[in-house]
């Protein structure tokens, strides 16, 4: 009787080992990888369908307008933005491009800082403030990014996120011309961040941009260059739906985070 528990334990151990071990290969050397999976015993569980249909559920009352804008953006991107980006990459050496990228990112720390403060995220606001300080001084007006090397990664916060953090709902999905996927709340947030940056007028860039609109052009080119997404990249006739879901879900993740 005394050895019974040992028997059971060793049997259990052997069982668990058998499950975890790699399945032995057959005579051809084939390892039958699917044999190590637990399949649902019921014939067809339809979990894929249930999950996938749920993601199509995004509030989109302006779908027709949005789809037209999506196709417009597709062409605008292909015929204008991407050729400009290619030309920019061709004529500008890499270190200049990264300087431009860092410079505009440094300006964008201002709205990030304000929004971190508005959300009451002290640690993040401090980090962003420190980044702003180091990069503007040591990094010569933000052309370099020494802060990242000091272990202060860039953490962007925008007004859409702030609104989301205070429980403002997304509102209908909105495809913005040229700017791409958004929703009513985030589009308002983008506008607010833009106006705030103008009002703060950090390093006088906003004032200078009004006199020299080419600064906006450079900023736009750099922005497009920094986003790896290409229209058509998802390679599906349902790309519109997929972008819509990914955008909406990613924003929720950012706000929850």
């Amino acid at each position: 009787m005394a050895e019974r528990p040992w028997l059971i334990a060793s049997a259990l151990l052997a069982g668990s080992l058998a499950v975890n071990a790699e399945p032995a290969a057959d005579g051809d050397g084939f390892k039958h990888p699917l044999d190590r999976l637990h399949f649902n015993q019921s014939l067809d569980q339809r979990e894929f369908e249930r999950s996938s249909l749920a993601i199509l559920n995004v509030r989109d009352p302006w779908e027709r307008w949005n789809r037209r804008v999506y196709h417009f953006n597709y062409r605008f991107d292909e015929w204008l933005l991407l050729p400009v980006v290619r030309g920019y990459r061709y004529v500008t050496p890499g270190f200049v491009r990264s300087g431009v990228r860092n410079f505009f990112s440094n300006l964008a720390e201002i709205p990030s800082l304000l929004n971190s403060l508005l959300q009451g995220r002290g640690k993040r606001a401090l980090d962003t403030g420190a980044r702003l300080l180091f990069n503007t001084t040591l990094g010569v007006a933000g052309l370099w990014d020494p802060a990242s090397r000091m272990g202060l990664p860039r953490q962007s916060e925008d007004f859409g996120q702030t609104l989301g953090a205070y429980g403002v709902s997304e509102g209908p999905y909105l495809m913005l011309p040229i700017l791409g996927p958004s929703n009513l709340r985030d589009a308002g947030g983008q506008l607010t961040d833009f106006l705030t940056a103008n009002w703060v007028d950090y390093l006088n860039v906003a004032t200078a941009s009004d006199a020299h609109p080419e600064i906006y052009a450079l900023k736009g080119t750099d922005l497009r260059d920094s986003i790896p997404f290409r229209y058509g990249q998802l390679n599906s006739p349902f790309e519109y739906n997929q972008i819509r879901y990914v955008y909406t879900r990613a924003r929720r993740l950012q706000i929850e985070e």
Partner: protein
Amino acid sequence: MPRLPLIAALLGTLLLCGRLPAADIDPANYGFPLHNPFEATITTTPPELRPLLPSDDEIDQQDYSLPLRPERRFALPGNLRQVEDLRYRLARQDHPAPLIFVISGTGANYASSLTEYLKRLFYGAGFHVVQLSSPTSYDFMTAASSAATPGLSREDADDLYRVMEAVRAQQADLPVTAYHLTGYSLGALHAAFVSQLDETRHSFDFKRVLLLNPAVNPYNAVRNLDRLVQTEVAGVTGNLTFYELILGKLTRYFQHRGYIDLNEALLYDLQQSKERLTNEEMAMLIGSVFRFAAADIAYTSDLLNRRGLITPPNYPIDEDTPLTPFFIRALQCNFGCYLTEQLIPQWRARHSGGSLAQLIGQISLQALQDYLAGSRKIAVMHNADDLILGPGDLGFLRRTFGERLTLYPFGGHCGNLNYRVNSQAMLEFFRG
């Protein structure tokens, strides 16, 4: 007695003719760290074990389009107009060089990540590279496919061959010294059929053909893939769907790290954390990706042929038509459903009947057995734990290719293609 030398000679020739055994890579020396086929398929090789590749700035490349079906253009529904011409990508060397055609896998277009990876690898080794969409990709179906019902290997290969000839005509000034061919997954199956077609048409006279993780029997392959979404995932009940479960794990993982960092090592790092995905979850994830590909194929084929299974015939479709109802229908069609509802009826109608077994016999690698066995220029690389294989598939490859089959012990489906040992073997084959 004088017969003895003759018999000995005969035996000797028989032995020489008999196939040498496949090159089985020893697991102990292989060094690929991911021994779980699902993990390998999803994360692929950890970044530090990948080969050094040229960056975009170092590659002279451009996308081109081919107007292959001008007659279809005016009949195309508004939502397919952006793929009315077939795109491909050419990376050109500034000196005469051999050219490699790369055929993408199931549902993938010319710019998909694996095709891009192979381009970088071969370009870095001094080849011109042309990246082609798979005949199962919706852009290829719309712009280049004659029947827009992919799955019949010979017809798909015929469409591909015409595309390749058009590419060569468009790039007539490119100094090409020889043509090679490769493909992965379903693209590898296509490469085998294209190579056989080339033996009669002689447009390219491919010097070397490399099949990477080919689908040996596409019917086995799609049955496996359809099955992957039937795994039992603990915790998906009620309001929590499978995707939300995965996203929940990702969120907790990011919260633990303190910031969101989307990079190549993300999935690898996730698998090292306590939020790691189980085998069943990974299988379901892989299965889901393929189900989206199946939905695109079913939808596009039905729409282009006006079969009325997903989109009602003559339903007006413009750029702004909401497509969600059709997406919902398409998502409910897996590969098996596409086969029974679209591919098999089309095949029966055109080839006056025939059984499923006959169809499978015509579209799998077995259909080319004699050609593959006798053609020294073709080689295969496969994994012992590839998810798309069925019982007997590796046995067929061993019998047919002999020492031209390299069998790696790990890697899942294409997960080790970007492992240094594999990339080195690929380059050696083409330089050979």
